[in-house]
């Protein structure tokens, strides 16, 4: 079972497609959650998920937008997609009869 941050990371990477790399995933997560996402947490989680076979990462070519620095590109593997789908189904299933209301 994925953790919350792992699911956010997988979903952000999947939605970005070929443009998924460290900084863009970070922006996506921060926009979606409204919370700060640290580079350290992102890279450490990426390492863990890669060792589990949920994502694949590689060094992209240097780009002039970043002062000629390479990007660490990310792609969700089929295993990662299955894990995210299973997590989403679990969240939907457990939330079915719950209406979150705040007073």
């Amino acid at each position, binding site marked *: 079972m994925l953790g919350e941050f792992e699911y956010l990371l997988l979903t952000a990477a999947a939605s970005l497609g070929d443009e998924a790399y460290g900084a863009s995933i970070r922006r996506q997560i921060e926009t979606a959650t409204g919370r700060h996402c640290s580079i350290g947490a992102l890279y450490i989680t990426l390492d863990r998920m890669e060792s589990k076979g949920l994502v694949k990462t590689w060094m992209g070519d240097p780009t002039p937008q970043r002062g000629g620095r390479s*990007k660490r590109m990310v792609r969700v593997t089929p295993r990662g997609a299955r894990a995210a789908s299973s997590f989403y189904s679990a969240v939907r299933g457990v939330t079915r009869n719950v209406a979150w209301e705040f007073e």
Partner: protein
Amino acid sequence: MGVRVSNQRTLAWWLVDRILRLLDAEEREAVRGDLAESCDSAAQALRSVFHLIMHRQSMLWQYPRPWLVLFLFVMPLGMLLSFASRSHAGPSSIYLWLVVNNANLSLLHNAGYWYTLLQIVPALLRSHPTRPMLSICHPTSSIGSEIGRTPSAQISLRRELPRSG
């Protein structure tokens, strides 16, 4: 006030740059690029990078080599050095105290003072506990420098990432 804040910011970014050197070259470039794209403050960047570095450094201790080096070399040599220093500190501190405590401007111009000093210092260096201490210092510093070079040269914290896969 503004200059002070600016100096602090510059110092924080300088620190970020220094501690980033603890990462391997590829990851360092990727993190630098990500920081360049982000709107992080210097303090946020410092915290993030520090977190990453601490994690990477702690990963080193998953391997047996640092533990072996710690228990086989660092701790025994450290204890030997400590005992040798302690046994040497007693007699030498008395002579050094005599020389330092009595020093004043007029004495510094006295040739006899310098003559005595030149007699005492070589005698201290020749004294019984000094030699074993110096003989420990050399291998300790050599092993220390080897250990310092080992992680980046031989222990890979992260497998090398393929290029443009």
